[in-house]
């Protein structure tokens, strides 16, 4: 699993490549929280376009970041979800609280 952070148009973008399971969700949580606390005013975008596998551990980590970002009054969005990722997201009900965009351009515009 590879985690990359970048800043664009006043948004903090976290791009995840590879697999998200329980092991990697701990790493994502720790690194994401450090960045979010550093840039609390920014919109937080989780880029899942490079994710090849994820289980429900990813749901826990996304909901946890949602709560943290909201506690700072920020916004959060998800970009990209292949069929594997999409099914878990759909099942979790995350899409009812976090908008999902197919492209980064869309997510940055809103």
């Amino acid at each position: 699993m590879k985690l990359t952070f970048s800043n664009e148009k006043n948004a903090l973008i976290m791009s995840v490549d590879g697999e998200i399971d329980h092991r990697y969700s701990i790493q994502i949580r720790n690194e994401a929280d450090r960045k979010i606390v550093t840039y609390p005013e920014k919109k937080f975008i989780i880029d899942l376009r490079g994710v090849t596998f994820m289980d429900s551990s990813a749901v826990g980590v996304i909901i946890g970041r949602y709560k943290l970002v909201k506690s700072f009054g920020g916004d959060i969005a998800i970009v990209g979800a292949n069929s594997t990722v999409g099914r878990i997201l759909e099942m979790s009900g995350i899409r009812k609280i976090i908008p999902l965009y197919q492209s980064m351009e869309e997510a940055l515009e809103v």
Partner: protein
Amino acid sequence: MNYYNTIKTSFLSIPENESLARMICASFISQLDPTIEELTDVKTAVSEAVTNSIVHGYSGKNNGVVYMDCKICDELFTVEIKDNGKGIEDIEKAMEPMYTSCPEAERSGMGFTVMETFMDSVVVNSVVDVGTKVTMTKHIKRKIL
């Protein structure tokens, strides 16, 4: 019965072995030439069960042993994931969607729901202070053997 194959594995209860368990299962069922979706279903369900053993069964201790046995009987794939951990007091409650015994660890409480959605059957046997066994089956239409 025309075709039968089985493997037995055991590994330490460390998070690094979650991906190993997925890979073992994926390699084992590849002999049935599953679709990508069938393969992902099995990998996801196995990931959930093995994570449960590590996180809940052994409470994150890395010296437990997780046993994973896989079986193919014609077109029926069966995987049994067992631990000798603390067991589940109330299986019915544990299987409720969104229920988690450790919310502070940001567990989503979706593990059993995912297993039940992606597999054809999920049976949980557990005895407190003895351990838990999760048995899952999935029919994989055989294309090449």
